């Protein structure tokens, strides 16, 4: 039996990596990947706690997956639009607010 803390620690590490990806990468698709990674890290928590607390954890994880799917679809659509408009998806260059 694996202690729940270990799941949580893995989840925390993955979440931190995902956050680092979101913050540092230039490519919008990579940022999206980071978001997916963070969502997955959260899911690990739900699943881990469901070993003890029962089914609700799995339901939450399930809905998170569904929402992640929807989110990826919309996000990719937006990325494609952005690419058409700016001819790049480099987040440094995608900026219309000039100071």
């Amino acid at each position, binding site marked *: 039996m694996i202690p729940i803390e270990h799941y949580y620690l893995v989840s925390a590490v993955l979440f931190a990596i995902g956050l680092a990806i979101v*913050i*540092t990468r230039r490519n919008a698709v990579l940022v999206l990947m980071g978001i997916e990674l963070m969502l997955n890290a959260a899911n690990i928590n739900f699943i881990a706690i469901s070993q003890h607390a029962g089914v609700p954890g799995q339901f939450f994880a399930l809905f998170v997956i569904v929402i992640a799917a929807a989110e990826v679809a919309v996000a990719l659509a937006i990325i494609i639009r952005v690419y058409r408009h700016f001819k790049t998806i480099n*987040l*440094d260059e995608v*900026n219309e*607010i000039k*100071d």
Partner: protein
Amino acid sequence: MAADLLTPLPCSNITLLALIALMLPLLSFLLNSGAVARYAWQASIAACFFMVLSSLISMIILVHVWNGTTFHTRMTWFVLGETGHTIGLFIDNPGALMIFLVTFISLLVHLYSTQYMKDDPGYQRYFAFLGLFTFSMMGILLADNLLVIFVFWELVGFSSYLLIGHWYHQAPAARAAKKAFIVNRIGDVGFILGIAVLWAQFRTLDLETLKEAMSSSSIQGESWVTSAGIALDTRWLTFMGLGIFMGAVGKSAQFPLQVWLPDAMEGPTPVSALIHAATMVAAGVFLMCRVVVLLDMDALSVIAVTGGLTAFMGAIAALTQHDIKKVLAYSTISQLGYMLMGVGIGAPGAALFHLFTHAFFKAALFLAAGSVIYALHQYAHRHQLAFDAQDMRNMGGLRAKLPVTFIVYLVATLALVGVPMFSGFLSKDALLSASFGWSEAMASEGHRWTYIVPVFAFTTVVLTAIYMGRQVLLVFFGELRIKGPADGLKESSHMIKFVLVVLGLFSLGIVWSLDPFDYHASWFLTLMPIPASSVPGLEVFVLDTARANALDSHTVVGLISIVLVLLGFGFSWFKYRPRASYALGYQGRAGFSFLEQLSFKNWYLDPLYRRLIVNPLMSFSRAASRTEKAIIDKFIDVTGVGSVIFAHIVGWFDRAFVDGFVNFSVFFAGKVGVLAKSFQYGKIQNYIILAVLSTILIILLIL
């Protein structure tokens, strides 16, 4: 003290009728001014109809007051503080006669004007103003209160201004209207000062109450004390009388304010007949008859002398005029002088009598002159001739062409000159006798200079005969001086002839007295009450003596005046007869001797006034205007510049400090904004960094 005398008096049928008679001309004014232009003719007929009604009503009133009863209705008008002002109608014998005179003459003028003015573009306006004028004239006659009289007095002045300036697009008419208005104003200043003195002394302006109050006041030493104990210097009593007389001087064209009347002849001829012969100028005389019981001896003497002087001056000025209407205008001034002289010598009844006879024969003269002018106008129009239709130099020999006009003119002339059997003889005889009696009575009191008044009066009789004889001879006898076709000069329409004949009939002596040689037999004078004057300090017995003397001297005076008239006619026939050198050379007459100039220019009064009053006044105004520009404007300019400088300083302070504070706030807010903005420049990852960092910080704080 007068409070119990100022109680409201109930309304009677007669005063109600008088009110209707007063309102009818006003209605006519409203109707004529409000009617659509298309119905101007109908409106004017309605105006005539209103005047018929009004004169019928005044006849009824006259019948009711014939036996000497008076009707007085009064109500409180408004209350100022403690003192109430009343308004009311007062009708006595002279008043009723005057109402009848005004409505009747006004009716005749209305009828005459429907013909005379029928092609005039201002026809409707003309009739409206006639109504307004008649209304205001009636107001003077009916009002019981000096304040109300003054209001109507001004209204008369105003409507006469409108009527004189009927042809306002012609410069002389506009100028004459202005002149009449302004000269009248000068008189009115005196009038309102007199009213002010009366108010100060008696706290009322109701005439009946004033009479009572005047008789209860007394002279104590140097002061004039009322029964209520209000004391004024006695000179104020004289001043009051002279002030009111000054109003009459303006309105009745007396020396020195007579200059407006000749110029007023620029108005339409029927207006001249109505205003400047019968009614408006008579308003002054009527007013003086009303207030004669309030005048003291000094004021009366001044009035008498002024009247006599004006009579003389007017007659002299009439001698050499060329304009047919101007002769009549100066003659009117002269006759008005007679009337006021009558007031001054304590014979207001005789003055009113002369006012009446004069109103009819002078209206007849004016309207006949209008008929002549109208006929000549038509003649000129028909033959495309251009000449002045009012200038006697273009007339002559009209006797055959205009027979009715000629006869009426002749009758009225004889009446004016004072030939026995005609109305003027009676009234003039009454005045002459009274003046003679008065100066005798005054001389016996030591005032020998008063003989100047009858001297003026008798001289004027001669002069009147001369200038009227001259006019009749020059207009109606001899040959027509205008070169033109013989045909086309004919009598005007029947309406005009009818009016002339009616007025001519009233110029006959038989209408006024059954005995055409003795004015005492006249019904008119028996109607006139002898004024019971009770002004403190007035030597009543002198006036009584004057009346007695007048009775005694009547026969002699009558004979003298007949002789004088014959003398005057003889002179005028000798000088102006058709084949005489004057008549032959009249058309091209230009050169004047000094005396003729003096007469023609009306004693040089106009240039004199221009030099003595108008020019100094103008230069004073110019000087005042310059002073205004140089000093007051400068002061204002300096103030303005100072304000501007001050404003600049304030503005600088505003910019530097007030705005500075605001600008600093804005600057500060802007900097803060820029600082805040720097966190949001579109780099989404920076947002995330900040968000996460903040979250971490918050959690750390919570933990």
